[in-house]
């Protein structure tokens, strides 16, 4: 079974973003989604440091370190884009104005709890950034992550074992083998992205699946 690459995962998720959506892309695999958006759809990207209508990476000669994204990488501004300060930027995030936020995940529970900010290791400084704000504030939260960790352990569980970022916040999970939706009844398989049996998919998942 050939699992999806990061690029393919991003491409698959991008298909489900409605034209005209306001979207925040988290650091990591989520930023790859930008490469698969059709400019004519005018999906507007928000960056929490204060940008709406964020454009692609600039050419080297156009790099401006006063125009960076949340990952502190140089970006550009689309025609019609805007800048604003942090209180407004987090009003956008916390006030339910973003249609969608796409984040990476360490674990997601069957009821949509998300763990993606801390491994909970003692002695390590905690670092949360805007993850908790996005988790509770966006209209929908899609998680883009591998289905299993490197050692094969399931990342979709009955209950998160890592410190949580938010409770009951996840709408969908896009993994390297399936698309899943968190429903009141449990985790529902929307689409299998690879040639895999229901039994095998279930075996790789730490919570009961609805097919």
């Amino acid at each position, binding site marked *: 079974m050939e699992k999806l690459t990061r690029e393919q995962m991003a491409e698959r998720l991008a298909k489900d973003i409605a034209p005209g959506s306001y979207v925040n892309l988290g650091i990591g695999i989520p930023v790859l989604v930008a490469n698969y958006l059709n400019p004519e759809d005018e999906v507007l990207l928000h960056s929490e*440091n204060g940008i709406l209508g964020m454009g692609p990476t600039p050419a080297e000669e156009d790099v401006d*370190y006063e125009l960076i994204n949340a990952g502190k990488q140089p970006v550009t501004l689309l025609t019609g884009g805007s800048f604003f300060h942090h209180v407004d930027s*987090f009003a956008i995030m916390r006030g339910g104005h973003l249609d969608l936020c796409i984040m990476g995940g360490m674990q997601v529970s069957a009821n949509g709890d998300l763990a993606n900010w801390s491994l909970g290791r003692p002695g390590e400084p905690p670092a949360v950034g805007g993850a908790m704000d996005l988790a509770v504030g966006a209209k929908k939260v899609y998680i883009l992550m591998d289905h299993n960790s490197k050692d094969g352990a399931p990342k979709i569980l009955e209950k998160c074992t890592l410190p949580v970022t938010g409770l009951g916040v996840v709408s969908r999970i896009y993994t390297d083998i399936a698309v899943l939706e968190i429903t009141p009844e449990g985790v529902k398989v929307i689409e299998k992205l690879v040639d895999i049996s229901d039994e095998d998919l279930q075996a790789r998942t730490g919570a009961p699946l609805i097919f």
Partner: protein
Amino acid sequence: MINKICGSVEEAVADVFDGATVLIGGFGGAGHPTELIHALIDQGARDLTVVNNNAGNFETGLAALLKADRVRKIICSFPKSSNSNVFNEKYKAGKIELECVPQGTIAERLHAAGAGLGGFYTRTSYGTDLAKGKETREINGQHYVFEYPIHGDFAFVLAEKGDRWGNLVYRKAARNFGPVMCQAAKQTIVQVKQIVELGDLDPEHIITPGIFVNRVVQVENPHISS
């Protein structure tokens, strides 16, 4: 005549006292008031509490202040980065206290201070380790965490242009925490790339009105780290 213009960064930071809370603007390198911080290192104030989104990068600005052992406590959302070595060393050595606050909660706590609010309820962090011990409340079926304001004794901010009344405009994503930090401190000190005449800034475009600003000092070519 109101004239908030200072002749030098040294003069601008001269009265920062030991134990002060200093709000430092910037997100990564954008908006980081490096020259004000370097002047503060030379000035010598210590036991500071610093509020910034991060905990310093490379060895300039906030990282240099940490390296000089002037900071007792840092309140930030994201201390870790690939080049936050100075903070990492101080933290591991137990030489600096960290209060990790969600980014939007830092912004709103500053806003609460600037707006004279006693605090606010937010859904952010409910049910997480960062809400442990905090007051919570259910409002219209949603769970909220109570957060207190963060008041600064001083704010260090970088802006693009300012006039002698302290009116400011910013540039691109360097605006970030500037406007809210200007509101949240007793003494707001702003380094601008250019001081302009009163009236040169279009009143429709002024982002921070001068009432929130106490001192303006010109630093034409500030260091902006990548």
